[in-house]
């Protein structure tokens, strides 16, 4: 327990501020924080009432004092926070009560749900915490938070810009999740990892409903835990809260046994509630907690406990993949995202992310990849790089608790990377090698593992967060090494008591039928204590080995997972040609992806890639597009055909990449949903169709500022730009973007589309083309680019 809280006594927080101010005449819609300026005596009165009731901590009236919520109010953030902290300081004067800078959510959703960028949220909180510190607050409390990403921005801002202790509380629904889906366990992992001084739950629910959530929080963290429940739930008719002071106090007394460090109240509670709590907890020292030492990583919505074998998907890695390398150079995220979604669907628990290439700005790409993957996939990530700047860029924007892959036993590497892992609360993979290479013998690798674990602990990283990789060597080259790896895994697991990780596939390099060797090695390694195999989850045999191992080692109780996965399936048999093969043309028309890919592969044996595109794929797409225009085919079918064509195109692109030639793109098109607009499905449809026709589409995403469009058009030399906007309110951004493109003197044509656009309006804002639907955008592309 740190020095904010106290071993001898359960400390008292205060009760509600907002509902108290409402009682003193705050009008509907008025900003409560401004009362610190307009009615400082009322605010000070509430603060003082809590001090007199026995609060050890009182919250300044600063909950909504941020640049977003105070916009247009006529006062600066600094003024409002200063007034709020000053009122609390006056109320606390002459007592031992400490003043909390109380900080709530910004009030807008962060990316990926909304357009507020993580970095902007960080800046907003930086201003708040700096103001609070200068105003004389004793500590910072972020409360009523619902978005873990916002929590991360907030804690980082407080840690990096003030010396103040930091408490953080989120508000949960009775199902144990916040509105954004964040779990209690994810809060615990992130807050502890980032070095918060206490973690808690407040608001939304009464003490009875929060109790089971507090139990979970206490089990999930070694940090001091505090709670501030509402006075029950408000009556819909009257707005009155349901739990009176005596009942509230009685229910909070139950929490004592959990080892709670501090208690208080949220909406609906008053000094009367706090005075009763003060009596009830006066002689109660917090119960000593001993939460189980657990290893886990997380995203807001998914916590992965390392209590059994967990599969790390290896596919997001450009090594040896020409297609992926090209996608990275083109800053094309689609390929990477499809790999993420596919591996999640195949049953991976964690995804490794490696975006390192000599000619790619790895730090920028790592940050971008982490954000992009987290927007579509809830699996925790393992950030894979040797570049400290790339790792930090990824760690900073990662939402949750990730793994860093990797450090090794070389002192310089440990010194460089462990502080980063500590600062951002990441688990870390340690490779059993050093400047002298990989020791051949298990004993020597074990010694390096010992060194890594000791260095991590010295850096403040608990051994539960260190995963040792004893390194897989290639059996065809160093046959005796396989057994040494297995032996080292067992030694590390049994004698160091840390988790183990291994890249599996390397074992079979140079051998035929590699999957058989991989699967056998994987099975042996799990039996020797491997927890985290890094493998291709699309390999049915390896995933089956993991599922079987969990049954045989009694992890998968009653074989539930195994049955859920394999019931009703027959054992894998070699694939045979099931049906009469469809032609590529028919497969595209019928929207059948696998058949289209197979047909393309078959066709490429005799036809050149470009020829296949021009003589089969494009005519098939034209036929579908014609049907769409005539009204005999509709959008879902158009897109299913597009999906099938895409599958065929992937085969073609792979063939072209494998041949080492440049892709036969027909020209580059930059597309974007304009600044301020987040409705991007129309733009995504357009992208799909344009790619079908062989255009290189640079998709800048949604909420894209004009200057980003200008920069991309210039960089790629694109001759066609597509802009979309759904709302009347964002059409002005479209016009600004077109003006910026013209002002930059770029020789590009601009097509625009979106529900509220008309041909007349398109002309008025200076667009060259109005695309009434996605099909029309293809016609325009043909006209401009051929």
């Amino acid at each position, binding site marked *: 327990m740190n020095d904010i809280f106290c071993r001898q006594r359960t400390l008292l927080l205060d009760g509600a501020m907002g509902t108290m101010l409402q009682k003193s005449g705050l*009008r*509907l*819609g008025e900003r409560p924080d401004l009362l610190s300026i307009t009615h400082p005596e009322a605010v000070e009165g509430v603060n003082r009432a809590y001090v007199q009731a026995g609060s050890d901590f009182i919250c300044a009236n600063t909950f909504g004092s941020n640049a977003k919520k105070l916009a247009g109010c006529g006062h600066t953030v600094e003024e409002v926070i200063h007034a709020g902290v000053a009122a609390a300081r006056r109320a606390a004067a002459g007592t031992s009560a400490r003043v909390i800078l109380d900080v709530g*959510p910004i*009030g*807008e*959703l962060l990316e*990926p*749900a*909304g*357009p*507020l960028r993580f970095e902007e949220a960080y800046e907003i909180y930086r201003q708040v915490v700096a103001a609070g510190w200068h105003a004389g607050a004793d500590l910072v409390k972020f409360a*009523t938070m*619902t978005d873990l990403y916002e929590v991360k921005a907030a804690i980082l801002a407080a840690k990096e810009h003030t010396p103040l202790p930091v408490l953080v509380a989120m*508000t949960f629904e009775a199902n144990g999740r*916040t*509105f*954004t*889906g964040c779990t209690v366990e994810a809060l615990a992992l992130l807050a502890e990892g980032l070095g918060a001084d206490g973690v808690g739950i407040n608001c939304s629910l009464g003490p009875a409903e929060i109790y089971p959530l507090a139990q979970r929080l206490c089990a999930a963290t070694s940090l001091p835990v505090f709670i501030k429940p509402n006075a029950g739930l*408000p*009556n*819909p*008719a009257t*707005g009155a809260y349901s739990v009176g002071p005596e009942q509230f106090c009685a229910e909070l007394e139950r929490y004592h046994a959990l080892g709670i460090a501090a208690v208080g109240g949220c909406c609906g509670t008053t000094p009367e509630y706090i005075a009763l709590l003060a009596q009830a907890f006066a002689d109660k020292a917090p119960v000593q907690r001993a939460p189980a030492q657990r290893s886990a990583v997380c995203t807001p*919505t998914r916590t992965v406990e390392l209590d059994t074998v967990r599969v790390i998907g290896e596919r997001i890695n450009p090594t040896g993949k020409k297609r992926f390398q090209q996608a990275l150079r083109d800053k094309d995220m*689609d390929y990477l*995202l*499809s790999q*993420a*979604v*596919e591996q999640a669907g195949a049953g991976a628990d964690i995804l490794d992310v490696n975006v390192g290439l000599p000619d790619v700005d790895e730090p920028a790409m790592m940050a971008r990849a982490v954000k992009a993957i987290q*927007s*579509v*996939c809830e699996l925790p990530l393992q950030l894979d790089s040797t570049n400290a700047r790339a790792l930090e860029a990824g760690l900073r924007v990662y939402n949750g608790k990730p793994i860093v892959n990797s450090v090794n036993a070389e002192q310089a590497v440990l010194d460089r990377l462990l502080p980063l892992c500590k600062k951002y609360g990441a688990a870390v993979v340690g490779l059993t090698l050093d400047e002298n290479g990989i020791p051949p013998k298990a004993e020597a690798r074990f010694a390096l593992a010992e060194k890594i674990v000791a260095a991590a602990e010295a850096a403040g990283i608990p051994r539960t967060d260190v995963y040792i990789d004893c390194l897989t060597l290639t059996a065809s080259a160093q046959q005796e090494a396989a057994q040494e790896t297995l032996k080292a895994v067992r030694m590390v697991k049994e004698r160091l008591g840390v988790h183990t990780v291994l890249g599996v596939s390397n074992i079979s390099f140079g051998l035929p039928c590699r999957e058989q060797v991989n699967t056998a090695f994987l099975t042996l390694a799990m039996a020797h204590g491997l927890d985290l195999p890094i493998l291709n989850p699309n390999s049915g045999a390896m995933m089956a080995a993991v599922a079987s191992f969990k049954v045989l080692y009694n992890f998968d109780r009653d074989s539930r997972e195994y049955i859920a996965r394999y019931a009703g399936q027959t054992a894998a048999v070699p694939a045979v040609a099931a049906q009469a093969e469809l032609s590529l043309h028919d497969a595209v028309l019928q*929207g059948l992806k696998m058949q289209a890919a197979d047909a393309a592969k078959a066709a490429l044996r005799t036809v050149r890639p470009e020829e296949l595109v021009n003589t089969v794929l494009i005519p098939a797409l034209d036929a579908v597009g014609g049907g769409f225009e005539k009204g005999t085919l*509709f*959008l*879902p*079918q158009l*897109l*299913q055909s*597009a*999906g099938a064509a895409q599958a065929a195109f992937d085969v073609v692109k792979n063939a072209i990449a494998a041949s080492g030639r440049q892709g036969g793109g027909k020209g580059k098109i930059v597309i974007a949903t304009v600044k*301020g*607009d*987040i*409705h*991007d*499905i129309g733009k*995504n*449809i357009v992208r*799909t169709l344009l790619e079908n026709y062989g255009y290189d589409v640079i998709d800048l995403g949604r909420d894209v500022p004009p200057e980003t469009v200008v920069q991309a058009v210039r960089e790629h030399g694109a001759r066609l730009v597509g802009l979309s906007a759904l*709302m*009347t*309110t964002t059409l002005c951004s479209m016009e600004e973007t077109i003006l910026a493109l013209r002002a930059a003197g770029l020789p590009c044509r601009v097509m625009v589309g979106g*529900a*509220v*656009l*008309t041909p007349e*309006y398109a002309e008025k804002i200076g667009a060259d083309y109005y695309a009434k639907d996605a099909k029309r955008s293809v016609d325009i592309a043909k006209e401009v680019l051929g």
Partner: protein
Amino acid sequence: MTGVWEPALPEQPDTAQALRYLGVPDAKDAALRALLQRAERALRDAARPRAVSLRAGRQALAACLQGEDLERHLKGCEDCVLLACTLGAGVDAAQRAANAADMAYAVVLDALASALAEQIADAAQQALRRQARGEGLFLTGRFSPGYGDYPIALQNELLRLVDAPRKIGLCATPTHLLTPRKSITAVLGLAGHPVTGSRAGCAHCALRGNCAYRKEGKTCE
């Protein structure tokens, strides 16, 4: 008529409405039916409908009420009920994953989610109407920011008044778009005598210029 609640998911999604959004006349196509079923399953998993409402006098709510069309809608009503409801952040996450994987599925999911948001708003409105009837009062239909000449820019103020970010996790962007996306806000008039309200009509509609219904001589309702 002030409070937070969890509207139940409907037994059946409004597939007909989703098809209308997709511009598809019927669901005869087997592949389309499969996509609709997949979308329905995803929505059952991902949707966590929440609603919040606030009853107050029109004077107290003046900051978020504006425009001739809304004025006409609220004729004869002294009080208003503000309503905000959302399918929750999980649906947006499911939509992002769909966008990255399969656009045909993504557009179907988007359409069905929009239809579901309407159903939830209808259910929320019915709950409010029952409460009103219990007090011998009458409610108009919903009128949302962006209808007619009711400025969409008041979205943020409406959300602030009902405390939607804190109560149901519903926010607006600086450009007044709702996040999570599948969400609906509205104003309903409340009176002691039967009121019906008045639809916005096409005169001030933003889609007036290229509305498919208008071209066919129909309206969207």
